[in-house]
Every structure is written in C-alpha cells, then in structure tokens.
C-alpha cells in the first residue's frame, strides 16, 4: 500500500493525542493526584491540539474534502463513518471537560465527563485501527494485533507526553514514568506480534496466489495440464495507473529493515532506556517524547508500505 503521508501523520498525531487524553482522564479519576491542577488542563489542551492536527491532516487525504461532511451517515457498516461520528462527539465533550478542569470544578459532572472522554478516546482509537483491520484484501492488517498495536502505541506516546507534563508543570513524574514504561513494553510486544504475524502469514498456507486470482484451479490452464504456474505476461498499460500507484508500492528490503530499526530505536529503545535512568527534566522528557513520535512515524509508514493488497496478484505478484 502507498503510505500517504497525511494518513501516517494523522494516525500518529491523533493516536498520541487520544492516548494522552484517555490517560489524563483516567488520572483525573484516580484518587491520588498524578498531575497538578496547572498540568492537567494544559495536557488536555495539548491532546486536543494533537487530535485536531491529525484529523485536519486526514482531511488532506480526501480527493474531494467538500463532501467530508457526508461521512457521518453510514455508522451501521463503516468504521470510517463511526470514527467521524466519535470524533464529532469527542470535541465538544472534551472542550466542556477542559473548561471544568480549568476551573478546577469538583463534583459528579467532572467525573462523568472524564469517563465519557476516556471512553470516546478509546472508541476513536479502536475505530481508526478497525478501518485497517477490517479490510479483507490486506491480509497483514486482518489480525487482532492491528487494534492492539494502535491502542497501545497511542497510549505509549501519550504517556511520554504526560511524563513531560508532570515534570514541567508539577505532578508525579516517577509514577508517570512507570505507567509509560509499562505501556511502552506492552506496545513493543504488540508491534513485534504484528510483525511476526505478518512474516508468518506471508509464507503461510492461507496466502493467496496469482493462480488462485485468475482461476487456474477452476480450469484456466493449458489442456491436459492439471497444475500450472501463472505469471503476468503483459499488464495492458505502459505507464503507472491508479492501481499500481496505490497498491503496487514496493519498498526495498534493506530500506524496510533500516526503517524498522529506526522505529525500534527511536520509538521504543531510546525512550524506554531514558525512562529507566533517574531524574527528569521537562525539556529532556519532551525531546524524548518527540523522538518517540518520530520513531512511530517510521513505524506507521512501514505499516502501510509493508502491507500487500490482493490487487498485486493481478499485477504479477506470485503471492500476497
């Protein structure tokens, strides 16, 4: 799949924002104050900015954004529609919540808002992941690892931002560091699980072949031959098409490995190691969070670049 930069940025930025928002709401529900009254509203504002920037970027992906308002009507079947509806619900609620937190209001309303905002953030993250995990033609994505990785990576990058908030504006940076480390480890497991699943699936029995795609088992073969291999002879066009641009994206193996290394180092290894070392300064915490987000951009770019769509069989790939 072609890694559209607008979508790569959208999923990473919104993911971090939603993870941060969910964590802040949970922290607000926690009886022990994990963030100072100064840090919490600032955190919510940062989270909303990240989510808004991501959603704005996702609109850039649309070829006809003037029709984007129509995307709310098919919630019954479309994960993209569900995502749009949840996003539209999240913003007003989160804004009211931000106001409540800013005025440090106590009471049931704030608790209720925190629960609602957290649930909406989780729902939104899950919808984004399910857009990809529900697509049958892309086998690498059709696994529980996809939503697991999206949810955990969002919370992992959000937790790193929370560490920076707690160090800068007051709170419990050590507690946040523990939360972040646990989420980081879980996210790493989910991503490694996703990659393992993809590697195992590629050679697996259920992988589709070019022969299946053009009906060799159903009789599309030379007379008197029972088993035959097929190959593309001519694609019928001399230049790129929408299909080759969108689906027949190829990435050199060494580039993929270099990017995977960068994703692992920047996205996981360096932030986790930094969390293991003692005292924290807000500037260092923020730099590490930004570094992790850069690593996740590489990870997300690979998520698309590595995925192989069934259409590639018709363009000559031997297997999906």
């Amino acid at each position, binding site marked *: *799949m072609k890694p559209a930069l607008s979508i790569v940025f959208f999923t990473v930025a919104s993911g971090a924002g939603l993870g941060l928002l969910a964590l802040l709401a949970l922290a607000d529900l926690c009886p022990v104050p994990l963030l100072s009254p100064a840090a919490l509203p600032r955190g919510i504002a940062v989270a909303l900015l990240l989510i808004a920037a991501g959603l704005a970027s996702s609109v850039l*992906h*649309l*070829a*006809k954004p*003037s*029709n*984007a308002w*129509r*995307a*709310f*009507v*098919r919630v019954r*079947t*479309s*994960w*993209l*529609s569900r995502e*749009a509806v949840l996003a539209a619900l999240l913003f007003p609620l989160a804004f009211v919540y931000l106001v409540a937190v800013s005025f440090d209001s106590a009471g049931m309303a704030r608790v209720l808002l925190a629960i609602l905002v957290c649930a909406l953030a989780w729902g939104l993250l899950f919808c984004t992941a399910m*857009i990809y995990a*529900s*697509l*049958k*033609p*892309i086998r690498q994505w059709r696994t529980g690892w996809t939503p697991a990785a999206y949810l955990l990576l969002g919370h992992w990058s959000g937790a790193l931002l929370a560490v920076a908030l707690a160090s800068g504006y007051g709170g419990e940076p050590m507690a946040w560091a523990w939360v972040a480390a646990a989420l980081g480890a879980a996210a790493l497991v989910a991503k490694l699980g996703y990659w393992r699943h993809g590697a195992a699936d590629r050679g697996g029995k259920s992988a*589709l072949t*070019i022969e*299946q*795609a*053009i*009906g060799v088992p*159903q*009789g*599309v*073969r*030379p*007379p*008197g*031959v029972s088993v*035959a*291999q*097929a*190959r*593309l*002879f*001519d*694609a*019928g*066009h*001399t*230049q*790129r*098409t*929408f*299909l080759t641009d*969108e*689906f027949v994206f190829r990435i050199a193996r060494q580039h993929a490995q270099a990017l995977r290394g960068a994703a692992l180092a920047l996205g996981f290894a360096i932030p986790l190691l930094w969390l293991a070392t003692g005292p924290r300064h807000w500037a260092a915490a923020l730099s590490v969070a930004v570094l992790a987000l850069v690593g996740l951009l590489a990870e997300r770019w690979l998520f698309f670049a590595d995925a192989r769509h*069934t259409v590639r069989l*018709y*363009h000559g790939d031997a297997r999906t």
Partner: protein
Amino acid sequence: MKLGLLIDLDTCVGCHACATACKEWNGASSVSGPLSDYQPFGAEPSGVWLNRVRHYEVGDYPASKTINFPMSCLHCEDADCVSVCPTGASYKRADGIVLVDQDKCMGCNLCAWACPYGARELDQSTGTMKKCTLCVDRIYDVLLPPEDRQPACVMACPTHARMFGDFDDPHSEVSRVSAERGGFGLLPELGYAPVNRYLPPREPKPLPGVDDARALLERGLASLASPVIRR
C-alpha cells in the same frame, strides 16, 4: 436480480476493444463521466479506466497458454466497497449493480482498498471514485433498439467473448452457458460472492494427424472443398 457479465477466456483474444469501448461510452456518460486522462499526449500517459485487460502465461512451454483476462467490477453480492463507504456514495441497487453516487463521494479511497479485484479507480480531476456501471444508462434506455440495450463492452467484443444478463434467472443465457461450461467467480476464498463469471478455456479438439490426412486423401480432395464451392 443479479445483473452481471459472463466473460469467455476461451475466445477472448485480448484486443482491448471492450476496454476502449467502455472508456468511450462512460467517459461521456452522465452516470460517472468524465473518465479523466492525465498527460494523454505526454511522456507518461495515464488515466482512469473501468475495464482493464491483462495478459497471463499459464504453464511452462510447450505446455503453456496465454490467457487474456479482462477485469471490471464484478458487482459482488457481498460488496465490501459498499459497506466501508462512510458517505453512502457507494451503493448496490436492487438489480445488483454497484454504483458510486458522484455527488456524494469524498474521494477517501477506502472502497478501492476494500476491493480485492482493483475494480475502482480514483479520478484525480473530479476527486471521486469511478467504477463500472454495467452501462446502466444503456441497458435501460428504451429509446435504444432492444438488441442494443447491453453494456458497451459486450457490444464491442469482436469474438463475442462477453455476455450480459441476469444470473438470478436460471434460464437466462448467461446462467445456462455458465452452468454448461463451468463458469467461476474470482477469489471465492475472500467471500465477496462476485456476480460476474469467467468461462475457462475449452479442451481443444485434437489436430488432424498423419493418419487423418491419409484418410482424407483417400476420400479424395473433393471432400475438402466447401459445399458452397461445390455447388
């Protein structure tokens, strides 16, 4: 109703007439037109097509065969392109035709991602998704003579390798021929239940060998002459 195409891989010669006829009709159609071209006279001409013909080699020489393989929307019964569409622009009609409402499409590409067959192409100039309409503006046009109420690709095919009809009706020509010749749908593994059917190549009749040639000579060359000439 399950309107669709029956494509004969035995007689298709891969001439691309169906694809160009499709482009010609639908490019000027109000249902999904225009079908934009990018740099049509430049170094890298490209554009939107609703029907593409690819060519495959199956088996190894000398036991190999070239298969010409036209592909357009298969009008699946279980069409994921319709269910993933967030705007409701993609829809399936009661007669089985899957269409894109060009006024509602926002060009998010998700339907193209959900289609395993590559049947949908985004038109960069209109920003909307384009796909085979089964020439819905031909097949119901009562001003056309009945024999012309067929998709442009079917009308254009010089070897009659394409047939159009209702697969829901077991007595229709497409259902009958498909049953007779082992018509199959593409990638049943994915569960989209495509309506369009493909006919595998026939087993060829054995070529006349040396013995056959001798027998022919014995019967006299006259028997080879066409009845028309003899008369």
